[in-house]
């Protein structure tokens, strides 16, 4: 017997699953109780904007972002670089016009992505990446007070993932792909506790909040942190993010691991499978 609790589409929360097993030999009923973290699987749609060179919509952990990539296109004379392409990232918020918060995100994305894209292949050109946030997690209320993420970072993993999927859809040459996740350290029963993909409320309560991104070669490429934490805590965060973003399994035996109830989604495998599906349907004639 298995009981599941329905959660809102974007909520991450703890649910209790009771498993009742009947042991026939001893004629005893065991009731096991687990606490499991439930994260909705990431979802993506590729190349759905036909005017753009590449596009993707990605939703995970309450955020939905539409990305469009154009490039390599002509750069303005005053902007162009003689030896490499300019990577221009534009982030548009779900509501209102962008401000300093978006500029901060853009600068983080720009410096990350230009290390992955082979910018030297297209000197004096422009690669334009537009990211429109369409859905943010529903606001949570505590004692009638609205809790909103007052930091910029929680949306960063979704933006990075969307940008990478759009770039793959645009077939722009890259050195590697990226996976990114967010983590928070929350004090629980006097002990620090790491939560991946925290909700707005958890971010609010957390001691520190971190966003890490890894390349497909399992190298750390982006690490942004907010709040107070010790070096030891950061090491734990790094370990947790590494397990989330980088699979040690080789390509061949991905299916076997899938069944073992790995917590949450394996982002690297997700990116691979979604692009593989797209390529297979594009090359159906082969």
């Amino acid at each position, binding site marked *: 017997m298995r009981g599941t609790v329905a959660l809102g589409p974007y909520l991450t929360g703890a649910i209790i699953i009771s498993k009742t097993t009947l042991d026939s030999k001893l004629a005893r009923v065991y009731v096991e109780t687990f606490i499991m973290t439930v994260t909705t699987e990431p979802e993506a749609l590729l*190349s759905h904007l036909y005017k753009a060179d590449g596009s993707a919509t990605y939703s995970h952990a309450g955020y939905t972002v539409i990305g469009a990539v*154009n490039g390599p296109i002509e750069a303005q004379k005053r902007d162009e670089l003689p030896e490499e392409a300019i990577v221009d990232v534009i982030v548009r918020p779900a509501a209102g016009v962008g401000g300093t918060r978006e500029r901060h995100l853009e600068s983080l994305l720009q410096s990350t992505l230009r290390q992955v894209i082979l910018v030297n292949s297209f000197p004096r050109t422009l690669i334009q990446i537009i990211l429109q946030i369409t859905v943010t997690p529903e606001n949570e209320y505590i004692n009638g007070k609205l809790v909103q993420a007052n930091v910029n970072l929680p949306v960063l993993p979704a933006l990075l993932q969307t940008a990478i999927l759009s770039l793959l859809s645009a077939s722009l040459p890259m*050195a590697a792909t990226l996976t990114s996740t967010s983590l928070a350290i929350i004090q629980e029963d006097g002990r620090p506790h790491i939560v991946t993909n925290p909700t707005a409320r958890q971010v609010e309560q957390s001691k520190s909040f971190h966003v890490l991104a890894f390349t497909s070669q399992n190298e750390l490429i982006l690490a942004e942190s907010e709040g107070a934490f010790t070096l030891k805590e950061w090491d734990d965060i790094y370990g947790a993010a590494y397990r989330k973003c980088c699979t040690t399994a080789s390509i061949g035996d991905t299916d076997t691991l899938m069944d073992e109830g790995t917590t949450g989604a394996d982002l690297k495998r997700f990116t691979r499978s979604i692009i593989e599906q797209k*390529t297979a349907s594009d090359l159906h*004639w082969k």
Partner: protein
Amino acid sequence: MAVQADRVFVLPGDEVPAALIPSHPKKALKLGPGLRHVPPSELIPTVAGQLATDHKKNSIWVEYNGGRYIPAVGDLVICSVQRSGPDYYYVTITDYTPNAILPQLAFEMATKKTRPQLNHGALVYARVCLANRHMDPELECVSPTTGKADGLGPLVGGMLYDISLGMSRRLLMRKSVEEGKVAVLDELGSAGLAFETAVGRNGKLWVNSESVKTVLIVGRAVKETDENHLNVEQQKKLVRKLVKEMN
């Protein structure tokens, strides 16, 4: 051509299985699009796609569809004239990219006095003869060795359709029906329609015919084949339907 067993999917930065790299005793290994050689001996894919190899030519490349066309020497493209300079026509191959140049004397039998007059918007079927990341691409409409046009030159009349890069590659294959699995043009021809087409590697299809109806039907048939990933059977069905609608 490509062996069926090597349908290996790669992402940028993946490892290319060493067993798949063709090894020819004499010929040098040729790398096609989507692969990068990192000295001394590493091969790294730069785009997502399927690895394809040709053991006869000792070549390996990544097959993919989509993105923006990047000019490569020898490709046939359909470009539109932007403006004319003293010696060159400035033409666009893809939108929002710097103009390519087409020398006014790079046409069959062209001399200073008999060069073609092309205005803004005129379409030209041309071959890329210089493509280099640091320079604007250069085109020609004449074979430099024989001096013949070989079908290249201004495209008069007709209509231009946008198709995906993968589709244009399939249409340009020497055996487009067997290898590319596009039978739609052959079917339309055998259904009694008279038309001419030109396929540009930059994702353009030009169709011309005496009757406007035929132009529209051919363009629609190819675009539908492309967008809906139709197989040969479905293409035949589509053509039958379109021809029936026309009459």
